């Protein structure tokens, strides 16, 4: 098998994944076979292994005790829905629906509506009644086919006029 140059080895980008145990079995076997003949990959592999070991031994920063206090205090003070029981969470949509329904009823009741009709007669109504009454006496009108309801209206208006 021909040796490959240090700069051009196409297997180089597999090496870190190999160190990390992230290669599938066929890829791993292929790389291990390649390592037997490549002039650059074994050296690079050693560097990567060494670096991974160095880094894993590196000490970490320890968070301050104040951070814990701040976060847990923030949780206590957080205006969030978290912290409610399942019942409270279930209740929310029910309450929302109830509030929406109540609002709808309220709006219907307080919405501006047309003012009720004034049942008292104004002067125009009285004039109309008088005219209708007079017209009734005219021969043309008297012979006209007035319906019962027309005559009833005239009679009611007449009564109202007298009542005033």
């Amino acid at each position, binding site marked *: 098998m021909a040796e490959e140059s240090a700069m051009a080895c196409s297997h180089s980008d597999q090496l870190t994944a190999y160190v990390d145990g992230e290669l599938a079995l066929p890829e791993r076997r292929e790389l291990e076979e390649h390592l037997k003949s490549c002039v650059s990959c074994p050296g690079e592999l*050693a560097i990567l292994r060494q670096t991974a070991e160095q880094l894993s031994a590196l*000490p970490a*920063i320890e968070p301050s005790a104040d951070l814990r206090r701040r976060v847990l205090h*923030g949780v206590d003070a957080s205006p969030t829905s978290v912290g409610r029981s399942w019942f409270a969470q279930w209740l929310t949509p029910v309450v929302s629906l109830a509030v929406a329904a109540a609002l709808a009823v309220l709006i219907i009741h307080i919405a501006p509506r047309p003012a009720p009709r004034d049942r008292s007669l104004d002067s125009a109504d009285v004039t109309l009644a008088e005219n209708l009454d007079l017209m009734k006496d005219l021969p043309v009108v008297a012979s006209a086919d007035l319906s019962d309801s027309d005559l009833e209206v005239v009679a009611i208006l007449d009564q109202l006029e007298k009542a005033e």
Partner: protein
Amino acid sequence: MLDPDAELMLAVKGGDPRAFAKLFDKHARSLVNFAYRFVGDRARAEELAQDVFMKIYRSASSYQPSAKFKTYLFRVATNHCMNERRRGVYHAPHESAEERPLELASVDNASPEQFTHGREMQAALGVALEALSPRERAAFSMCRFEGMAYKDIADALETSEAAVKSLIHRATLAVARHLEPFGGPQVAHG
């Protein structure tokens, strides 16, 4: 089957604040160190970690355990830290070992020489990280310091495993060059 952290998060969603304290205790150190590798300042790293925890808490009511909790946590953290880098100016290298000794964990059994060596390496790592792209930095940190699988890193970065493989390989080689003075094989330059 849900991972234990997802179970805790569901308990948070159900209103159990003690479950959130447990999640904090489990992940605070990882998150502070992850943020530190973006901003190089311990106090700012803690503020970023605090922001991330509060984001997680405030969105608990809509949490769905579709991925591992840690993946979800680091997705939020990566986005937050990248945004912070975009907003802020972080030209200064990470805190030097001389100027401001870090509060380091896992040093109980370390000799003074080992402790100093560790701090110097931490500073060299900080310089190396400055040269990486944000995505390389995030993928590298999740892999090297959190031991996360490439698949989970891909989920956190919302990219493919092949892309993650490439990001981690490039970043590890770049960091290796900066760690040469601390021993180990020579890295080919160029």
